[in-house]
């Protein structure tokens, strides 16, 4: 087990290296740099050049890359040019909102989607099934920004049930915290919910046709128990996979949601870092987000073992 985790952690290295290379070179290929951004629209070239030199931006690109990677190897993600804080610090400052948002979105989507998928599978072919599935299809087809816009228009502007935008940390009380996050989480979780509902249904349908379900039935187990005890747990692995993968997309989706709802999370941080060319913040953030994605999927893989004992010991 330990060895397995170690192996997985080691396999992170090439993945993160790919991410590092891609993010570094994309960032540095984008025209514009922090020096010109910082000095504003009317700055002269000389000023910009001077600042560039001070910030070490005039070094050859490979040199900058190796400096950065060298720092990484020592656990130093660099500094934010604007915020004058270590990237890790900046990242942590923005992690909270996104994490809350992602967890809430994922929570809502799981709570809605899994029962929906189960019911649809149980009532396969009925109108309930069709309704749920068309609903979930709509969920996939509706771009999240559109949904975000509509939700905010209706619930925040028109009904004024929720604030339009902004964020309150957990310290201000759970209720205030949630009040600001409900709409964004809904708009972010819709696609997830749709995907999970569909996966649950497909997976349940497959499991329900397995022999051991027949065995359970032949033992006289109640249908409810068959579904929730015998089938669901077996159907869980593909569901878990989707949950793990969508968790990654939540962060990406957060870019839009956080923009619309003005939540100071990683999405905003990333967008702003691109806009402001805050190289090291963007590089570090993307790297950490990617690592988190890989890490979440590692956890998902480990959860497989909890759900399914077959996975526990032997791995190919």
């Amino acid at each position, binding site marked *: 087990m330990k060895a397995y985790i170690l192996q997985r952690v080691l396999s992170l290295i090439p993945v993160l290296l790919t991410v590092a290379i891609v993010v570094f070179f994309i960032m540095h290929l984008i025209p514009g740099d922090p020096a010109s951004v910082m000095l504003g629209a009317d700055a002269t070239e000389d000023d910009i050049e001077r600042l560039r030199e001070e910030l070490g931006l005039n070094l050859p690109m490979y040199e900058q890359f190796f400096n950065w990677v060298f720092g990484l190897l020592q656990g130093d993600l660099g500094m934010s040019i604007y915020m004058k804080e270590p990237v890790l610090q900046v990242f942590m400052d923005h992690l909270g909102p996104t994490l809350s948002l992602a967890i809430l979105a994922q929570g809502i989507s799981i709570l809605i989607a899994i029962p929906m998928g189960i019911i649809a599978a149980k009532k396969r072919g009925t109108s309930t099934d069709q309704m749920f599935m068309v609903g979930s299809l709509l969920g996939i087809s509706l771009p999240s920004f559109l949904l975000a816009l509509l939700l905010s228009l209706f619930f925040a502007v028109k009904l004024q049930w929720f604030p339009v935008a902004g964020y309150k940390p957990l310290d201000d009380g759970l209720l205030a915290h949630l009040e600001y996050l409900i709409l964004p989480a809904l708009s972010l979780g819709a696609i997830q919910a749709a995907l999970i509902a569909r996966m649950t249904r497909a997976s349940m349908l497959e499991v329900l046709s397995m022999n051991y379900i027949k065995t359970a039935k032949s033992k*006289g187990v109640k249908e409810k128990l068959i579904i929730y005890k015998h089938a669901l747990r077996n159907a869980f692995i593909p569901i878990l996979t989707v949950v793990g993968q969508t968790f990654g997309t939540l962060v990406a989706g957060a870019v839009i949601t956080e923009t619309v709802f003005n939540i100071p999370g990683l999405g905003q941080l990333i967008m702003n870092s691109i806009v402001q060319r805050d190289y090291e913040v963007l590089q570090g953030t993307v790297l950490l987000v990617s690592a988190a994605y890989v890490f979440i999927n590692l956890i998902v893989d480990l959860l497989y073992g909890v759900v399914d004992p077959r996975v526990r010991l032997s791995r190919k």
Partner: protein
Amino acid sequence: MGKECLLEVKNLKTTFMTEKGPVTAVNGVSFEIYSGETLGIVGESGCGKSVTSESILRLLNENTTKYEGELIYKGSNLLSLSEDQMRHIRGNEISMIFQDPMTSLNPVYTIGYQIAESFIIHQRLGKEEAYTQAIEMLKLTGIPSPEKRVNEYPHELSGGMRQRVMIAMALACNPNLLIADEPTTALDVTIQAQILDLIQGLKKELNMGVMLITHDLGVVAEVCTRVVVMYLGQIIEEAEVGSLFSEPLHPYTKGLLKSVPRLDGDRSKNMHVIEGMVPSLNNIPRGCRFAPRCSYSTSLCEEKPPELKEIEDGHKVRCWHYETVLQEGRRKGIADAVR
């Protein structure tokens, strides 16, 4: 021990609603099972053996399956029982072992739990007590160190052991009738011998009726008392084991018996062959279902489906030409004896 009739299957007809229209996989099957006997059901793949057995416990998907006929168990028709009443019978009075022990056990629960579940459902035992009982059951099936095994998962056991677990599970509540659907097909011969031995022993001990489904005539010959031969959803012959093997009345049974390779057969001869293939259920011959492959077939066979007819005491056959078959068989038998 008296032979009481446990289950009477009367004209069972099971129809699936499929994309291409209704498919009747089992068409008018009737037989009885008595306590203490082993009834064999044989037939080639797809002839409806499993559907018959699953129909008895009503395990098939209710949405897409239609049952007709009667299944008389203890005076009531299983087909007209409520789902709740049916659940009380399943696993408690009639239980079942499936063909493939790997896929028939739930991979995510320990075998202990899966056996204990029967006790918990039907005898309302507490968890601990149920586990103790589960260990007892495992012991009964001859699994070494059952105390340890109860906490293992199906994938940690070998095929033979898994099948023992299935048996332990099925026998947990002392059922009156055990349906074993190809219990040894997935196993090796030496393991198969172990399992069959076990079922035979337990049957005697518990005085159950056993319905053994198989396509292996060798297995039937070794363990069954009575045999039903199925072909394409119908019973074509039913008899005591002895008379079926010595005097098969249906050309198909006869062909089947001959084409089974035997350890004592003549190696130099070509193996006997039943020409042709089983037609699909969507395309059933109008007359006798076996007619297209039958060497005795006449125009009568092609026109008119024969009825299942009792020829001798307990020996039934569905064939227009059983007499010819019988006579030919007797002549051959004499010839064999002479040689």
